[in-house]
């Protein structure tokens, strides 16, 4: 029955958004991570979504359904921000420490967007569930 596929689709959307939320959490948590070396600095991570068209032979619906998949997680290549803090235990010989260039505001906006999209998928799921429960009761009562 094809209405069960709704759960696959919404579920894939939820897991993709959850992964996006995880990367946001990772980026925000590491926003103040400091390192001695310029190249060891944390780089912000972002998932790249892609839709997967699935071929579906039965019932004659051959155009398939489109679930979401995370194709890859890319790391930004931004320049680390040097800070002159000679008293810091991690400071290098010249007295500099390096912090990642993470845009906290953009990450927060991304977080809200991911959260809203997740909610949308949950709503789809619960509506589909209600519809199916109604179908089960067809002809009763």
């Amino acid at each position: 029955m094809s209405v069960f596929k709704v759960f696959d689709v919404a579920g894939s959307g939820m897991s993709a958004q959850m992964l996006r939320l995880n990367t946001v959490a990772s980026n925000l948590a590491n926003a103040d991570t400091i390192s001695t070396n310029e190249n060891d600095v944390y780089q912000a991570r972002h998932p790249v979504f892609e839709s997967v068209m699935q071929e579906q032979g039965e019932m004659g619906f051959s155009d398939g359904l489109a679930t979401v998949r995370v194709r890859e997680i890319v790391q930004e290549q931004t320049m680390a921000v040097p800070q002159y803090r000679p008293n810091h235990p991690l400071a290098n010989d010249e007295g500099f420490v390096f912090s990642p260039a993470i845009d906290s505001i953009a990450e927060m906006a991304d977080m809200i967007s991911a959260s809203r999209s997740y909610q949308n998928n949950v709503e789809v799921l619960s509506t589909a569930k209600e519809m199916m429960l109604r179908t089960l009761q067809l002809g009763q009562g």
Partner: protein
Amino acid sequence: MPVNFNNAFGIHDDALLLFERRTQLLSENIANADTPNYKARDIDFNQVLQQAQNDSVKLRTTNKGHINLSQQAFSSDVQYREVEQSAADGNTVDTQKEKAAFGENALRYQLSMNILTRKIKGLKTAFRGE
């Protein structure tokens, strides 16, 4: 008068199939709201239902191996939504619009379901002859 179940349920059994298909399409649009280059898809409901109703000349399926053509007709009418505001990543999903369409679709589904339930109730009463 013979009871013909096809006539008894009117368009509602056809409509349910269509609603179900549309639920799936709209859920795909919502799930792919953040996917780059995804194009939103939908069915022109009125057009497809009209077509299904006008399809009075149906091929008879006299063998188990025969395929019911009226179901295949639904799949070929999936169209891409027109873009009103293009996004930089090539995505054409308008989440608000999709949610509204999804809600409307679910309500129509329940409406058809209610009508079917009532029709079945009526038939049951007729069978009992009380």
